């Protein structure tokens, strides 16, 4: 490993974390409500993304099965994973106000979580398109690199 690459993991964590921490730090000084619903949101987002990702990965496994004589076992495995995620979500949502936000019923909260997850996913996709798009566009616009020959 070259000198330049030494400790790159720490630099990466700092680079990703510093702007996020700065934004959240400034935001905490101007927040209207102390966002007491943050933990609830975190848990709802985690359970929802686990459940939906399990179902989406199950569909991907069906495509994977096309190339492997259609095995059923992995599909059943991911189906069970998704169903368990949905049941755990429904269980915790039905425990009074533990994970409920501004919705009147467990079903409404689950549907709201699903739409919110889709919204977050679209936002993450736009962020990815912007950053990787800028990098790709710049890389593709470099002039052709000169051929370097070692001195004879």
């Amino acid at each position, binding site marked *: 490993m070259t000198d330049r690459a030494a400790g790159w993991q720490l630099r990466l964590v700092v680079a990703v974390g510093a702007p996020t921490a700065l934004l959240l730090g400034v935001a905490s000084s101007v927040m209207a409500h102390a*966002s007491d619903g943050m933990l609830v949101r*975190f848990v709802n*987002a985690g359970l929802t993304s686990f459940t939906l990702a399990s179902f989406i990965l199950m569909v991907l496994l069906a495509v994977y099965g096309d190339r492997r004589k259609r095995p059923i076992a992995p599909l059943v495995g991911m189906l069970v994973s998704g169903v368990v*995620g949905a049941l755990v979500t429904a269980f915790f949502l039905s425990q009074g106000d533990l994970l409920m936000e501004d919705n009147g019923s467990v079903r409404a909260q689950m549907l709201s979580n699903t739409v919110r997850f889709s919204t977050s996913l679209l936002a*993450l996709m736009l962020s990815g*398109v912007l950053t990787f798009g800028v990098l790709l566009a710049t890389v*593709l*616009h470099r002039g052709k690199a000169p051929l370097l020959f070692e001195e004879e």
Partner: protein
Amino acid sequence: MDYKATTHAQGMEGQSLALFLFWLPGVAIVAGTILALLSKNGTVRRIATAVAGASFVLVLSTPWTVPASPSSAFGHFLGSVVGPCVLLGVGLHNIGFSGNVPVGRLSRNDRNAGIVMLVVGSVWLLAMHWGPLTPTYPNDVNGYWLVFWSTVILVTPGLGAGLLVLVRTFGDERRTEQRRLGLLALSVLLVGLAGLAVNGPTLLSSVFADALWLAAADVFGTAVGLSAALVVLALVLMMYERQIMPPPVADGPSEQDLERVNDILQSHVDGGGTGHD
């Protein structure tokens, strides 16, 4: 029929409409996109693309088809952001592929059009925060747009700065790339800080600050959930692959087979045994 029964019936009707005009198309968009991208069968890919496209239009039209359903706010949000997002995506594509690509290089006009699209898309998004274009539905700022915008503002600077570090560490002669990534990260960070310092015409900085913290909870929760699902997928595949019976091993060649191979090889090596030597 009394009033309570009537409203109950209307509620059920609204739910059925939301199911057929929002939720089922939503599922069809996801399934159709996956099949269109990954299926080997060309007919399946074409049908899946058509179904996903038609479903997208159905979801977009929910503010008119099922205005009573809370889900219609998502359709309104999608309709509000699809313009700038497409402009940004196509703009970056045009700029990138008008560069040094060996095949399918776009023209200089395409590149200029891409730059215009990028500028218009960015200004459009900014005008949603500080201009007259804030998505409001029905009379308030659309909550889904707030989630979307705060997530973009929160994630992009960190992602850009992280990518900058990776390019700096592993790339050679990539100063221009580093500068552009730094500029992107810094610009979006400044937009976020400005949003926290200055009220928009319809979006107060305190509301934006709340949304940023909730977006952080959303992003971290989503990351944890996705990681857990991937771990489960890896475990499921590992268990399945371990249970597969090994393929039957064929017996080695017999003496007779080896002799035959030897004969064939010799007949080729010595020129077919024509005996010209």
